[in-house]
């Protein structure tokens, strides 16, 4: 990667002004992915870098009764150090599985979410938690569900010439949450594919359920989730087998390779078994 120039704006207005002049500029937050895997084009084209780490708004953490708002340049280690009383279980677990503590001091949540070509670990956790993202470009800013960063083909589709500025996570309590890897990391992938799940159970009935697999594509089968929501625990082995099979089929449809699709199906079944085991 050949760097033509580096801008280090001190405010979002300055960053947007730079983006207006250089729409192809590469936003730089922690930079851990680019430093290890190179940029997505992988060629020697000259690039302008927009270094975001000096913008105070992007490193702020705000908390209200209804949600937690993280600036896009908040580091992963900062998120781990947030009070344990916040219901961030899937995200925390996911972050703990990422690299080492010293790398997490550099890596940012925004960088993890807006990686090109692959859904990284935090994405599946945030998708599970119904997070929203604030995107800013030369035309202004807008809030959107994190699912707007998923293309119709299930692949990442982060808009060009846009900065991710904030991530809003609803303060919902999850009774059960998990995140796990779906096998080993392939050579050309920045991290292993991941499975995230979260559920809320009231009086022995599943009230909310999220099952997400993320890798090159994202797999979330809303109809499977809806078929399980409202069911009383314990689920019958037949129902869990059916859920496993439906998850496997959906993963294949979303072009996950067969071994990973199998692991996704098994992970769904394991989560359902764990959930009813713990709720006894």
């Amino acid at each position, binding site marked *: 990667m050949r760097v033509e120039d580096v801008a280090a704006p001190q405010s979002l207005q300055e960053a947007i002004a730079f983006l207006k002049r250089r729409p192809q500029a590469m936003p730089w937050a922690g930079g851990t992915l680019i430093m290890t895997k190179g940029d997505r084009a992988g060629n020697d084209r000259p690039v302008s870098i927009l270094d975001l780490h000096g913008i105070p708004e992007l490193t702020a953490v705000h908390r209200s009764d209804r949600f937690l708002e993280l600036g896009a340049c908040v580091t992963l280690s900062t998120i781990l150090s947030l009070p344990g009383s916040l219901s961030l279980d899937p995200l925390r677990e996911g972050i703990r599985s990422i690299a080492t503590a*010293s790398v997490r001091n550099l890596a940012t949540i925004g960088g993890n979410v807006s990686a090109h070509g692959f859904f990284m670990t935090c994405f599946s956790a945030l998708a599970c938690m119904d997070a929203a993202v604030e995107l800013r470009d030369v035309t202004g800013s807008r809030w959107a569900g994190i699912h707007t960063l998923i293309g119709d083909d299930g692949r990442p589709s982060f808009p060009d010439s846009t900065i991710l500025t904030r991530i809003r996570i609803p303060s919902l309590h999850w009774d059960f949450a998990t995140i796990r890897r779906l096998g080993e990391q392939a050579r050309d992938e920045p991290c292993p594919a991941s499975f995230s799940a979260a559920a809320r159970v009231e009086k022995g009935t599943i009230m909310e359920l999220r099952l997400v697999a993320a890798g090159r594509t994202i797999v979330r089968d809303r109809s499977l989730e809806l078929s399980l929501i409202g069911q009383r625990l314990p689920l019958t082995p037949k129902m869990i087998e059916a859920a496993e099979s439906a998850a496997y089929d959906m993963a294949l449809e979303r072009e996950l390779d067969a071994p990973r699709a199998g692991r996704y199906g098994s992970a769904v079944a394991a989560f359902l078994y764990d959930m009813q085991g713990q709720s006894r």
Partner: protein
Amino acid sequence: MIIDFILNGEDVSTQAEPMERLSDLLREKFQQSSLMSDCLEGRCGKCLVFLGGHLVNSCLVPAFRVRAAEIITYEGFKSTDTHELVHTSFDQEGIELCGFCDAAVYMAAGSLLDAAAQPSDDTIMETISSVYCRCATPSATMQAIHAAVDLKFGGKYGRAR
């Protein structure tokens, strides 16, 4: 581009390519020989430095990112009381680290002592696992760090001495 920053308490300035790795920059232009550029992926942890007070892998930091920042390498860390504490504790536990690991392990241990509160076992394990070191077992390293923490915090959890 010209990069101005603070290295071990001194204002320094140098000419560097924007994407030059900080580990290379510090070794080649500032003779910080304790830094090893080994894996270049943030796995081995042999290039740890404090950047703005945070322990980071300098091989993952491009030169442009350190403009106006404060960096402490092992050469600077060696002269601190924290290093003295860590070194004493490791000696007392009988841990001998090789020349490849010692700087990074001492700095990782030092980062735990600079925190406001006593670190938990999980935090110690996670921080120490930033350095790929086979000179000592994790349990021995943990004991040494606990000893250093006790020396630093006076054995009183979360309270002033």
